[in-house]
């Protein structure tokens, strides 16, 4: 709360004063999610609310619409959310409902789950108009088509009768935006509207929101964890952490001369496209006041002389769906993919959703059966050997999944999780030896010894990902496949896990296949990058080469879509 005394000036559309929200966890304990924050949303501008998970940013936005679950949330009585001279906190629910959708509307993170799948897009749009504008029949339909055209849906006359499942993710998010702006709201709250989307789609949606904001003269409250996105869109920035505001002010000030250490840390611990320090700075470095410890650049790249550990040739994977009584339709998820993985290096695998990059990883692990191709490891083809033979090789290739909350069995203690693979593969002679090794690995991934006796739910996302890494390490693999392994993590935690992966590679000479949609992260960690689209390789080259001189138009388009952050502040931030 460094700058509460200095709220954003100007004619405010909404001003939030001393907002306190807590949640009842059980009869006695309460958790204070928002600890007395104050900020303004000026008219005709975009305010970005930035923070990591648990910072209270989403809770704040839900409170503005009165959407917090009434049974366990408590908004402090002294809190004020003033809109149009009225305090939304004390407004009766009926009045609030009139404001929702009409004056203040909201778009959510997941367009796939926010639209009702059994109603057509038009029906859902018309419902909003019917409820708030009193429009009916033909007028509502005409207006719906207009709005759909405004958000850039092609052929709106036809698409209005489509069901959500018939639209792509980007189009669904456009429909959500159309619903949000249909009644010409004065304030649009966008809660992580682009997080679930591919970079190219993200860019389109960001452009659309920016464009609509200008054209409609409305205000946007943009909630995100991604500072690069904020740099592109925001006029004002509010940085939150643990329910408090760390810093707020015009975007220029926050990006160019951040005052708060946390803001500074947040700006720097995210991998950047033009730099590659040997270690990424983490939030703790800044909070302790030491600053970044390793500033020298790491050299990346693959030489012809590097020994090859895995040679993949013409890998293909098809999925079949039934069609008619006897027919089968083939869907080629991976087509004719060949690459060589050098020892001790990282191969980055980038592509948009549906490009087949995850399927490549799962097929190499034989979690999916490959349709064609071979993967030569120590002179043997991993894909064609019998399951029994493969068992011996299974531990040599391991995978770290995307979601650390789902990939650990919730009913096992960490000790059980770590000891199990050693038991299965007969690593270590006795229970005692295995236990000792588990303790060693816990230490290696930076977790306390007590963790051995705990259950996964007692750890945060980053810690769980470390446990997953430790589990892989118990088997001493040669190749580690990281399937979006840091995508679900907060920026600061992401840096820690990336550093850990790098340390392990340096120590054990592991080879990584690093699958991600995040181009900045891939650039940071990879020696070589392979771009995939619709199941085929588009381009493959050393990472510096591919980011500097992309050859294919698809790659160029992909790289151009990466949010560039605060353009004006770039040089200063890199000092």
């Amino acid at each position, binding site marked *: 709360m460094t700058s509460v005394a200095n709220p954003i000036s100007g004619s405010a559309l909404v001003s939030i004063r001393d907002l306190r929200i807590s949640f009842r966890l059980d009869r006695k304990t309460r958790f204070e999610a928002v600890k007395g924050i104050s900020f303004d949303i000026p008219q005709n501008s975009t305010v970005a609310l930035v923070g990591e998970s648990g910072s209270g940013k989403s809770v704040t936005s839900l409170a503005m619409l009165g959407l917090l679950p009434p049974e366990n949330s408590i908004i402090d009585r002294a809190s004020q959310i003033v809109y149009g001279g009225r305090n939304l906190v004390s407004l009766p629910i009926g009045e609030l409902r009139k404001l929702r959708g009409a004056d203040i509307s909201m778009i959510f993170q997941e367009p796939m789950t926010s639209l009702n799948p059994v109603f057509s897009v038009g029906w859902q749009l018309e419902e909003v108009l019917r409820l708030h504008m009193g429009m009916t029949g033909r007028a509502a339909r005409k207006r719906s088509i207009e709005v759909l055209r405004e958000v850039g849906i092609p052929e709106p006359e036809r698409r209005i009768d489509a069901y959500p499942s018939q639209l792509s993710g980007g189009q669904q998010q456009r429909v959500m935006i159309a619903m949000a702006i249909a009644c010409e709201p004065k304030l649009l709250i966008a809660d992580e509207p682009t997080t679930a989307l591919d970079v190219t789609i993200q860019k389109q949606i960001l452009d659309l929101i920016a464009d609509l904001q200008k054209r409609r003269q409305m205000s946007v409250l943009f909630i995100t964890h991604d500072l690069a996105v904020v740099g592109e869109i925001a006029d004002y920035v509010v940085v939150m952490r643990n329910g408090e505001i760390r810093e707020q002010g015009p975007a220029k000030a926050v990006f160019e001369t951040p005052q708060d250490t946390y803001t500074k840390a947040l700006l720097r611990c995210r991998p950047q496209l033009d730099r590659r320090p040997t270690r990424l700075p983490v939030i703790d470095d800044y909070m302790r006041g030491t600053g970044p410890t390793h500033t020298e650049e790491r050299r990346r790249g693959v030489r012809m002389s590097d020994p090859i550990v895995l040679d993949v040739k013409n890998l293909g994977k098809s999925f079949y769906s039934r069609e008619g009584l006897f027919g089968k339709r083939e869907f080629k998820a991976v087509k004719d993919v060949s690459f060589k993985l050098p020892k001790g290096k990282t191969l980055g695998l980038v592509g948009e959703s549906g490009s087949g990059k995850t399927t490549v990883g799962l097929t190499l692990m034989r979690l999916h059966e490959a349709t064609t191709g071979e993967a030569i490891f120590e002179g043997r083809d991993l894909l064609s050997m019998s399951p029994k033979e493969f068992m011996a090789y299974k*531990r040599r290739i391991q995978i770290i999944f995307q979601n650390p909350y*789902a990939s650990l069995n919730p009913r096992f203690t960490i000790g059980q999780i770590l000891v199990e693979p050693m038991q299965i593969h007969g690593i270590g002679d006795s229970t005692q030896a295995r236990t000792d090794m588990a303790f060693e690995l816990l230490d290696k991934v930076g977790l306390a010894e007590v963790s051995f*006796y705990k259950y996964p*739910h007692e750890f*945060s996302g980053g810690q769980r990902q470390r446990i997953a890494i430790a589990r892989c390490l118990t088997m001493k693999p040669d190749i580690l496949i990281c399937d979006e392994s840091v995508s679900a993590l907060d920026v600061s935690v992401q840096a820690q896990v990336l550093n850990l992966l790098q340390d392990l590679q340096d120590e054990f000479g592991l080879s990584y296949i690093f699958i991600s949609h995040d181009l900045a992260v891939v650039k940071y960690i990879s020696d070589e990058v392979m771009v995939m689209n619709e199941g085929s390789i588009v381009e493959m080259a050393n990472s510096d080469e591919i980011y500097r001189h992309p050859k294919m138009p698809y790659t160029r388009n992909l790289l151009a879509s990466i949010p560039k952050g605060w353009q004006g502040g770039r040089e200063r931030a890199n000092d």
Partner: protein
Amino acid sequence: MATHAAALREGRAPIVREVPHTVSPGLWTLAWRRLRSDRVGMVSLVIVVAFLLMMILSAAGLIASDWNREVGVNYAPPSFLGSEAPAASQAAAIAPGGEATSAAPEYKSKIVDPIGDVIAELKAGKGERGESQPAAAPPATSGTPAEQGESVDPLAAVMADIRAKTAQSQVHTEERKATLPFGGDKWGRDVLKKTIKGSETSIFVGLAAAALATFLGTVFGAVAGYFGKWVDDFFNWFYSVFSSIPYLLLILAVAAVLQQKGIMTIVLILGLTGWAGTFRLMRAEYLKHKAREYVQAADAIGASNARRMFVHIFPNVSHVVLVQMSIYTVGFIKAEVILSFLGFGVPVDVVSWGSMLNEAQNELILGKWWQLVAAGTAMALLVTAFSLFTDALRDALDPKLKGRAGA
């Protein structure tokens, strides 16, 4: 708790280390804590446990082992009504033993008996003929039943036999009590003790049948859901065919195949016919869980199919099994009653709440309500408590709350 046990069985890590550590609560411990804060759930749990305790004590022969002794007069009324109740004398009129018939029927009825007059008439008629022909004589020897004004009793000969035997064995050394704590049945047995003894059968049948049904359902569902493809098709066909047969017909069919009466037969009937619901549920759970990342991760580290199914997935769906089992227990306690009513229930020499209720339907006409109330109340109390406990259990095990503590 369960996972610890599993770990020990697996030979996994009875870990001893010098590091001082606080044992972290597993999900079961957390669920128990949530359950403990649920007042209704805890009260229900206490009631259920009390019933189970009663059942165990009774099975061990520590209480109600003498339920079979005819301690009271026939249809002895509950003590709190007093022995003046008309029932006693009425009961005497039709009870076996010569001395009972001589007792003149008195009607000081406070309760209005709708068919009291009719019975009085019948009694009067019987009394007239009583000089030449004692009413206590078996009907088979006393001309046509119509003449006697009594309904035809096909088991009369058997009953007479039993009566003769009991009359012989019954040494009239002890005084028969006029009243019993909660009344007596037709033979003067203590209804309260009978109810306690009956709980043994009813609860055992309920629990055992529920365990069998959930076991079958879980194994079938796990195999079908986990392996999918033709295995799943096979089980689904089996399930579809199975569930297309009317339920009662199925029960009768199984009963006919098993060919004998007994507690185990009822358990088998209920268990073999009741697995379908759990099957669908477990199949869905396994379908859902086998695609989860933690199962893929187990595959990646080389865990076998059986290991993934039962060591990895099962503990994560075991709460569903538990809830299913308690729902089944409630249902099967009731089903036992229905079976007993239909005549597929427990043998004559065994008492259960079902057989008590079956007896009670005849007694009710005579105004002897206590057996019905005793068995009915016991069952209603247990079933309600069990249902409420099941609800509380489901809430406590609700995985939606998972993760909040750690996040």
